[in-house]
């Protein structure tokens, strides 16, 4: 009864995203592959029963689903290497998976693929405060690094909203960002080294505890490669000293456009707070219902601006921001009064996507636009969704122009689901047309794959595919993702 792939597109929607057709020879060798994998990893490391494979059929891009051939859960880099070497020799596709929190379907498998789950590789291997680095296994969650060094006054800066659950391996694959990346940069700016296992099982290390690696910036290439160049099993990340103080401040506006224009002016004035987050009215209501953070419910748009540093530094920056906000008709300004209140403000913001589940199903867009375009893109986003008869909630990293419209729909209504997808595609095209790009931090994955031609020319795509093929000539690693299925090398 439950379908294996996506909902059927009905009505005014768009064609569902296709998976690569499974290789019949791989499907036919299922038992043999399973037996071989069982030899390569420690006990309990292979999931084989068809019913048990189902929970691995999707990630947080839950509209698309496809159970894999098998799931393997290695515990060491050596086991990962053995599994990849085997899959390479047996010509079996491999999809790496961290916590399965991808919003673009990065961890969604395909019928002939082995899911390589890194969730058992969840050890923090070394904290080196002298060099301000942490060496961790790929399955370590983002937040647990910061928790580990909190008592010593340090943290790991990139903070995707799913940081409680998402893993460093997945963060590297998608070059993840987060609210505080405005000041500290995204994953690639905080990654110093990786242990990477290539598809033939070769283990290489790139970078280390130092800032620059010799030769080509291969680390820069691997970060954001969506699991197509190799599988990261360990990472060395940078630790940053906590500022003396940090204070989120809530700015309420009467319109999204005013809030958007305020953001553009703050950045244009050369002010870089730690974070500028945007929520519109529906998003405020959703987040307040979960976190009870005391967000103003009587405004049309809210900015969470966080300043940090010494008291005087925070006060000075805040004064400048308030002046700019006044010019844009800010209606309420509220500084958080305690650490508890600050924590609630962030809890609400970071739970926004999940909390949306209280009122509807959603798909989350990830387009990024130049800041001057924010007001226009916000307005058009609303119009596009209204055109499809759908509601939208906007909650995003305004400071770096990384939009996250949440298109609300009813997943049990296939026609509405198809409309939501079509609206999403329109919004992403809008972002590209406005001078931005398809993805700020969630990755292309499955979700945006077929839109890549809106952003890149054939020549650009061919060059990117050539880089990919240099690492994985057989296209075995996460093959259904990133590049449109048509026009790939034979």
């Amino acid at each position: 009864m439950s379908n294996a792939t996506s909902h059927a597109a009905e009505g005014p929607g768009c064609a569902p995203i296709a998976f690569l057709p499974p290789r019949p020879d791989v499907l036919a060798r299922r038992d043999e592959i399973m037996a071989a994998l069982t030899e390569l990893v420690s006990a309990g490391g292979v999931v084989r029963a068809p019913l048990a494979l189902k929970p691995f059929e999707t990630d947080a891009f839950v509209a698309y689903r496809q159970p894999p051939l098998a799931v393997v859960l290695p515990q060491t880099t050596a086991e990962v290497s053995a599994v990849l070497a085997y899959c390479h020799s047996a010509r079996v596709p491999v999809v790496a998976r961290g916590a399965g929190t991808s919003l673009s379907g990065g961890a969604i498998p395909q019928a002939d693929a082995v899911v390589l789950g890194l969730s058992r590789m969840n050890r923090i291997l070394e904290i080196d405060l002298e060099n301000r680095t942490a060496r961790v296994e790929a399955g370590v969650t983002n937040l647990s690094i910061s928790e580990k060094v909190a008592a010593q006054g340090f943290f790991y800066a990139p903070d995707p909203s799913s940081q409680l659950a998402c893993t460093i391996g997945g963060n590297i694959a998608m070059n993840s960002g987060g609210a505080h990346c405005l000041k500290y940069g995204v994953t690639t700016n905080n990654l110093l080294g990786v242990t990477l296992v290539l598809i033939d099982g070769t283990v290489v290390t790139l970078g280390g505890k130092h800032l620059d690696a010799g030769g080509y910036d291969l680390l820069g290439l691997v970060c954001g490669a969506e699991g197509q160049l190799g599988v990261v099993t360990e990472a060395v990340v940078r630790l940053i000293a906590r500022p003396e103080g940090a204070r989120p401040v809530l700015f309420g506006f009467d319109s999204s456009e005013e809030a958007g224009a305020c953001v553009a002016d703050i950045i244009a004035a050369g002010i870089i707070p730690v974070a500028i987050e945007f929520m519109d009215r529906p998003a405020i209501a959703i987040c307040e219902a979960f976190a009870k953070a005391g967000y103003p419910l009587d405004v049309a748009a809210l900015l969470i601006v966080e300043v940090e540093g010494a008291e005087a530094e925070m006060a000075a920056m805040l004064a400048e921001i308030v002046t700019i906000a006044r010019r844009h008709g800010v209606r309420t300004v509220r500084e958080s009064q305690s650490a508890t209140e600050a924590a609630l403000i962030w809890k609400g913001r970071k739970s926004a996507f999940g909390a949306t589940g209280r009122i509807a199903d959603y798909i989350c867009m990830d387009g990024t636009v130049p800041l001057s375009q924010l007001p226009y893109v916000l307005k058009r986003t609303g119009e596009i969704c209204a055109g499809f008869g759908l509601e939208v909630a906007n909650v995003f990293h305004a400071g770096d122009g990384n939009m996250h419209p949440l298109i609300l729909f009813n997943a049990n209504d296939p026609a509405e689901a198809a409309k939501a997808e079509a609206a999403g595609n329109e919004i992403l095209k809008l972002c590209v047309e406005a001078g931005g790009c398809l993805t700020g931090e969630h990755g292309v994955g499955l979700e945006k794959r077929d839109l890549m031609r809106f952003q890149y020319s054939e020549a650009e795509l061919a060059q990117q595919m050539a880089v990919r093929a240099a690492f994985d000539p057989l296209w075995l690693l996460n093959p259904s993702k990133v590049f449109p299925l048509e026009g790939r090398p034979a």
Partner: protein
Amino acid sequence: MQTFFTPAQRADPALAESEAILRRCVHCGFCTATCPTYVTLGNELDSPRGRIYLIKDMLENDRPATAEVVTHLDRCLSCLACTTTCPSGVDYMHLIDHARMHVEKTYARPLPDRAIRALLARILPYPARFRLALSLARIGRPLAPLFERIAPLRPLAAMLRLAPKGRPAAAPSDVSAKPLASSAAGSKRAIPYGNSTPASLSAAGAEAAPPARRVAILRGCAQRVLDPGIDAAARRLLSRLGIALVDVPGEGCCGALVHHMGREEEALGFARRNVDLWTARIAAGGLDAILVTTSGCGTTLKDYGHMLKRDPAYAEKAARVSALARDITEYLAECDLPALPARGLTVAYHAACSLQHWQKVTLAPKRLLAAAGFSVREPAEGHLCCGSAGTYNILQPEISAALQARKVSNIEATRADLVCAGNIGCLTQIGAATSLPVVHTVELLDWAYGGPVPARLAASARFAAAE
């Protein structure tokens, strides 16, 4: 998430309810991070999201439970850390309850598993049987290493190891009428104390008390055998506060033990009996609250209204009982206990899952302890279960032991003088793995406000001196 139920399936209220729960889940995966079994085993199938998926598939297809599915559902502690974490408000508790009933109905467990479960269901809820079983366990303890070596018998080994080594401490008989320590100057309301209110009023006596101050304490089952001192402490403290204690003879196990094994009819039987008794008591003169000193049971009492909502004869009565159920610390937090000077003792407060995740009672116990002069420390990873979880430490000894070790190491890292918690399961589980004294929150409160030193502390000169 999209669901696939037929109109016929939706006509079944239980399935319709489960579908509504499933529809809320957006598969974001946040719950994996705080799930003790996912953190321990690193497998999606042992996470709440994975189990939700297994349950969804089983219910949608009306499929009998398979061994593989049962393995992963059985590993769920029902700690509900996932519901604290879940941003979209997925009611995992009632979904897993439904799944357990489905397993019980459609799956034939291997004989040893079935036997152990039947044994637990026939012994634990009945104090006389449980007391006898504990005596036998003391004799049988040397057999534990033998059972340990035979996989299907490992639960027996776990049972023997968990049985308290000495005889259960008898309830201290003296009901101290010592007045509350008198630093009540800043307190909002005068505390009635010193007039030696009897520990327990007869039903007739209770009629005389003002209705707003008349409470019953759930006597329950296992706790009164394992540690009768806990309820004795609660009774002394409440009495000194001038609160009338109403006895409800015949009341017993709340049904949680069998409920969590999916034995629904048995669970509802316990629930109906208790609901009848309390309803009669309410009719006979009112009841301000039904207090619970075992938070695991408190959760079940608070859920009676839900458990019996489709039973027309009981729905209303059960809802009334649930509305009256309160954890002892919830109730005491409203009694304006006076602040006492610091006692120089640090207490590691272990938040029982049933209190923090089910009942969301998080601040009251810590505030009460702090007001009573204890310095409260909170162990790291406080959201993680200690591995007790009802009969879990017997049925899943390996995972339980891993969680127990993790919990005790976090507790000991606080360097506190003693440990306290509000649930007998946690007290037993933690107490079995640490040399620190482990006591119930209400025992410390009773002690601070004029009661005797708790039995588990009395042996130590240090605590006796602190009195």
